[in-house]
C-alpha cells in the first residue's frame, strides 16, 4: 500500500502543472473564504439591505455556523481538484505510461488504488485546509467563543471530505472513459454547472413538466453531492435551513462513490490498456 502511494508521489512531485493547480485551488479558496466581511462591506456601500438588516452585522464567521458556511462555499472549488485528477489520469493514457506501468508489473487494480490514493490525499488536504481556514476566520471575527461552540457541528467536514472524494472519483471515471483531458474537463464543467442544474430547475419549477419524476432529483450525481451540505445563507434572512448533514444524503453519495470506482475497475479489466 505504501509502495503504491510512493509510486503516485514520484509521478507528481516534480510535475509543475500539478503544483500550479494545487496552489490555485488554495489561493482561490483562501480569497473566497476570507473575504466574507469585505463582501458585506461592499454590499452595504452599494446600499443593499437584507430585509432591513445591515449586511455587515451578519455573523458569517460565528462558531459553529462558520463550519457550514465555509464547507458550503468550498463546494464550488472542487472543480480545481478535479482538474488535477483528470490531468493525472489522462496523462497516463496519452503518455502510454499506464500501459508501461502494467507491462512493468503493476496490476490494473494497483493502478486504480494509486489514483484513489491521490483522490483521498487531495480530499484530506482540502478538508484539513478548509478547517484551518474556518478556524482562523472564526477566531478573528466570531463573537461567540469557547471550545463548546468551536467544536460543534464538525460533521460538515467529513461530509465535505466525502463530497470531494466522490466528485473526484467521477472525474476519474470520466477520464478513464473519455481519455482526452480537454474534453473531460469541459464535459465535467458543463454537466456540473449547467446541464444537471438546468434539468433539476426544470423538473422542479417548469409547469409543463409533470412532477411524477421529482423523486429522482436527490439521486442525481451532482444534486446528491450538493445536498450533503445545504445552502446556509437564507437563515440570515430568517428562513429555515437544514443545518445538519442527513444520513440519507450520505448514503446516496456513498453509493455513487462505490459505483464510480467499481465502474473504473470493470472498464480497466475489460479494456486493452
Amino acid at each position, binding site marked *: 500500500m505504501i*509502495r503504491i502511494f*510512493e*509510486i503516485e508521489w*514520484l*509521478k507528481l512531485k*516534480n*510535475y*509543475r502543472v500539478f503544483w500550479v493547480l494545487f496552489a490555485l485551488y488554495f489561493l482561490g479558496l483562501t480569497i473566497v473564504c476570507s473575504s466574507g466581511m469585505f463582501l458585506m462591506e461592499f454590499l452595504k456601500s452599494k446600499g443593499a439591505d437584507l430585509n432591513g438588516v445591515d449586511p455587515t452585522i451578519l455573523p458569517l464567521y460565528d462558531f459553529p455556523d462558520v463550519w457550514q458556511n465555509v464547507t458550503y462555499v468550498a463546494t464550488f472549488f472542487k472543480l480545481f481538484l478535479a482538474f488535477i485528477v483528470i490531468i493525472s489520469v489522462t*496523462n497516463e493514457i496519452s*503518455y*502510454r*505510461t499506464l*500501459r*508501461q*506501468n*502494467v*507491462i*512493468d*508489473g*503493476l*496490476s490494473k487494480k*494497483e493502478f486504480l488504488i494509486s489514483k484513489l490514493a491521490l483522490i483521498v490525499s487531495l480530499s484530506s488536504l482540502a478538508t484539513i485546509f478548509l478547517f484551518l481556514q474556518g478556524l482562523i476566520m472564526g477566531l478573528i471575527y466570531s463573537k461567540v467563543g469557547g471550545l463548546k461552540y468551536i467544536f460543534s457541528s464538525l460533521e460538515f467536514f467529513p461530509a465535505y471530505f466525502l463530497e470531494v472524494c466522490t466528485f473526484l472519483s467521477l472525474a476519474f471515471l470520466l477520464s478513464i472513459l473519455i481519455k482526452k483531458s480537454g474534453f473531460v474537463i469541459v464535459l465535467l464543467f458543463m454537466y456540473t454547472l449547467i446541464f444537471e442544474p438546468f434539468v433539476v430547475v426544470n423538473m422542479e419549477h417548469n409547469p409543463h413538466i409533470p412532477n411524477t419524476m421529482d423523486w429522482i432529483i436527490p439521486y442525481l450525481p451532482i444534486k446528491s453531492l450538493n445536498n450533503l451540505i445545504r445552502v446556509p445563507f437564507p437563515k440570515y434572512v430568517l428562513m429555515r435551513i437544514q443545518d445538519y448533514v442527513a444520513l440519507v444524503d450520505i448514503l446516496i453519495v456513498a453509493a455513487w462513490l462505490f459505483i464510480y470506482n467499481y465502474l473504473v475497475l470493470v472498464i480497466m479489466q*475489460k*479494456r*486493452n*490498456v
Partner: protein
Amino acid sequence: MNSILKINNLTKHYGKIKAVENLSLEVQEGNVYGILGPNGSGKTTTLGMILDVVKPTSGEYSWLNAGSKSQSRKKIGAILETPAFYPYLSAVRNLKIVAKIKENGAENIEPVLKQVGLFDRKDDAFKTYSLGMKQRLSIAAALLADPPVLILDEPTNGLDPQGIAEIRELIKNIASQGKTILFASHILDEVQKVCTHFTVLKSGKKVYDGNVEEVMNQNKKIEVASENLEELKSIVSGFGDLESLENESGKLIIKLMNGSDSIDLHKYLIDKGIVLSHLSERKSSLEQKFLNILKESDD
C-alpha cells in the same frame, strides 16, 4: 530445460481483423527466441497479450516463473513499441518509478544508464531526448531489475548504426548469461545474429517454428573454383550426394544433400586429383529461408 512460457491457442480479433489466430508456442529457459513476420503479422499484439495489456479474444498463456501475472511481469524486462515515460521527469526519476513498480533495481539505476550510454544526460527531462536516446532509456528500464526474461519488440528502432551494433552486443551478452529473450523484429539479419530459435508469423498465424542453426545448415552451399572450371564441373557432377550445381562468376556453387558436407566433397576431389584454388562454405541467410517460408505459406 524448463519451459518458461507456454502459449496455448491465443487469439485476438479486432472486429473483423484477425490479428492473432490460434497461436501456440513454448519458450524454454535460456532460449533467444526470435519472432519474425512482416509488418502487421501480429508480433506486437502477441507480445501485448502475454504482457497483459492486450486482452485476448480467446486462448491462454502462462508464465512459469512466478505466481500471479503481475508478479511474473515484475521479473520480465520488456520493451513494447515506442518508449513510454513521463516526459517531464528525468531518466533517473523515470527509472525510480520503474524500480518502485518492480520492487527491485533501485540500486541499478546508474549502472544501467551507463550501460546504455545515457549517463551524461541522466538528469535531463525525457522530453528533451532524441528518439535513439528514448529507445536507450527503454532498454535501460528493461534491464533495470536484472530480469531472467527479456521481451524486446524492435529494440533497435530509431538507433543509429553504432547504437544498433551496441544493442546487438548487449543482447548477445545478456543471452550468454543464460537469460531468456523473446525478440520481435523484422530485421532478419538481427535475428540471425542473436537468436537460437525463431518462429515466423504471417497474418496472425504461425507458419514456421524452428532452430536457427539447423535452418542455416540445411541450406548450406559450397563454393569451389580451380584453374580449369569445365573439368571441375564435370568431375563434381559425378559426386554422389550432389543436389544442385550452378556456375556463378567463375565459381561453382554446390548444394549437397543432407548428411554430407564440404569435407566429403573435398576428399572426393582430392581422390580425383583436382587441385582447388578456392573452397568456402556459404551459409544461406535467414532472409532467403524467411522469404521461402512466406512464399510456401501462400500456396
